[in-house]
């Protein structure tokens, strides 16, 4: 069963087209990373999966449904997104913000109930925010805030979780923790995960499928063990690298060592 099906999708802003003729299927329970240089269209693709951007052409299916024909409410109960940039009222507490993640599941007249509290408690525990939950978001560090926004996305209890650079602002310990948490959710509840990552090694380690974008086109798509190699890195990032393979699970580890552009300039 496909969680997401995208056929001949074109996306862009105004008249400009950023993504051209994009076609992929994502199976339920897959953990997919999208990688590629800045401006290659990663966030753009992710937004279209949450109906934040209407396709210029082509169709996005969530399950069996054409996303354009779904209401925002329907989409938000099955897809949640952690965005790259967020705004918020300065004085809201972490816990109250995470509660907003419950709103897609509520009718306009329903208020917070026992079940919401339970879900919020679970989210707060798993995002390690117990100590911070009553603090105002303005008083949290960038990384702590990022965890709160992940909490909002998780409180939505999505079937499909979209993460746009979830590890920015986080120190390595929390980076690992976040990715482990997402992986655990993915394995335990069969939640489909599509994330944009900049760290190739994290993409390699934590996903069973990597989609490589360059200038809005798919350059490679598949199991990281099979597709991540020196030639690809050179082609996409213009960087020379060495590749090792992890002793435990065999995922490729990429060590970049020379930027070709920089080299030429010297």
């Amino acid at each position: 069963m496909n969680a997401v099906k995208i056929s001949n999708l074109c996306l862009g802003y105004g008249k400009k087209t950023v993504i051209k003729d994009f076609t992929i299927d994502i199976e339920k329970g897959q953990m997919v990373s999208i990688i590629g240089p800045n401006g290659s269209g990663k966030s753009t693709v992710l937004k279209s999966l949450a109906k934040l951007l209407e396709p210029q052409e082509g169709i996005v299916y969530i399950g069996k449904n054409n996303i354009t024909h779904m209401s925002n409410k329907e989409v938000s109960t099955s897809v949640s997104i952690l965005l790259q940039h967020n705004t918020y009222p300065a004085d809201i507490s972490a816990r109250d913000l995470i509660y907003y993640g419950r709103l897609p599941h509520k009718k306009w007249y329903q208020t917070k109930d026992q079940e919401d509290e339970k879900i919020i408690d679970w989210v707060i525990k798993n995002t390690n925010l117990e100590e911070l939950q009553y603090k105002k978001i303005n008083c949290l560090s960038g990384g702590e805030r990022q965890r709160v926004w992940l909490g909002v996305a998780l409180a939505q209890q999505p079937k499909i979780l979209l993460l746009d650079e979830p590890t920015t602002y986080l120190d390595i310990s929390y980076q690992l923790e976040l990715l482990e948490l997402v992986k655990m959710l993915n394995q335990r509840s069969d939640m489909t995960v599509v994330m944009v990552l900049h760290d190739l090694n994290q993409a390699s380690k934590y996903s069973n499928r990597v989609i490589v974008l360059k200038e809005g086109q798919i350059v490679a798509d598949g199991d990281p063990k099979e597709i991540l190699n020196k030639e690809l890195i050179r082609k996409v990032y213009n960087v020379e690298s060495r590749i090792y393979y992890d002793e435990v699970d065999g995922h490729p580890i990429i060590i970049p060592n020379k930027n070709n552009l920089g080299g030429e300039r010297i």
Partner: protein
Amino acid sequence: MKKALIILISILLFIITVFFAVSMGSVNIPLKEIFNFLFDKGDVINKSIIFDIRLPRVLIAALVGSNLAVAGALLQSVMKNPLADPGIIGVSSGASLGAITIMLIIPQYTYLVPLFAFLGGVFATFLIFILAWKDGIKPIRIILSGVAINAMLGGATSLISVLNSDRIQGILMWVNGSISGRSWNDLNMILVYSIIGLILSFFCIRTSNILLLSDEKAVNLGINVNRTRVLISLLGAFLAGISTSIVGIIGFVGLVVPHISRLVIGSDYKYLLPLSMIGGATMLLLADTFARIVAKPIELPVGTIMAVIGGPFFLYLLRKGEKR
């Protein structure tokens, strides 16, 4: 619970202000006598002063204050900008143009004044979105477009006034924003509308809160952002419009009251909206009472008083906003 207490205190303050406002004026009527009236005793003339003159005026001031403060709070959410006040951004000018058109050109249709004031307010709101909207409205853009819209609509209002200068006498006080000489009839004209508008505003609490997040996250929380933005703006224009139709342009209530409320009770609309409602009533009532007694026996237009209080406050907010 602390927040519920704050609201309770604000209600007490409001009630005290009402008694204060009823007792003060060209003739000061002691509180004891006012209580006597409640039991059908006391001086007949004083009773008439209170029930025929002061009470309707006090109620209008309170109602209009609530309307304007709530309109401001709502517009601030949809425009993502704490400077969005119906007076500053031109909604009141639009309403005023609508109202004056009826009052001067077809005075036999006075009952249409609130409707046209509302339409004028909607027109101005529409203009501000066209001129200033760019993924939210930046302070500087909202000010500039507000100035432009106020100038444009104010110009149109002047034009109509000049062309009908024979009839202008009766509405001169109104133009400056004044609650002077308002009667039970005037109150009746806006009472029902105001109550409907204020009740509707409570249905906007959740969405107003979510609109404070980025539009993208709001969509992902199931909100139909564009439709919601239009509906809440309409409600804001409605509240400001009907108020303008009865008292003229009174600025800054929608700026000062929600701002102070936010400092006191936080930005959650669940508390911010009720507090603004009560705070707006108290603030305008105080300002109007002040306008009545400060230069006795001359009455100042309350719009002028609000401008004197609100102007510096506005500049302070503007500076603070820029620093951030």
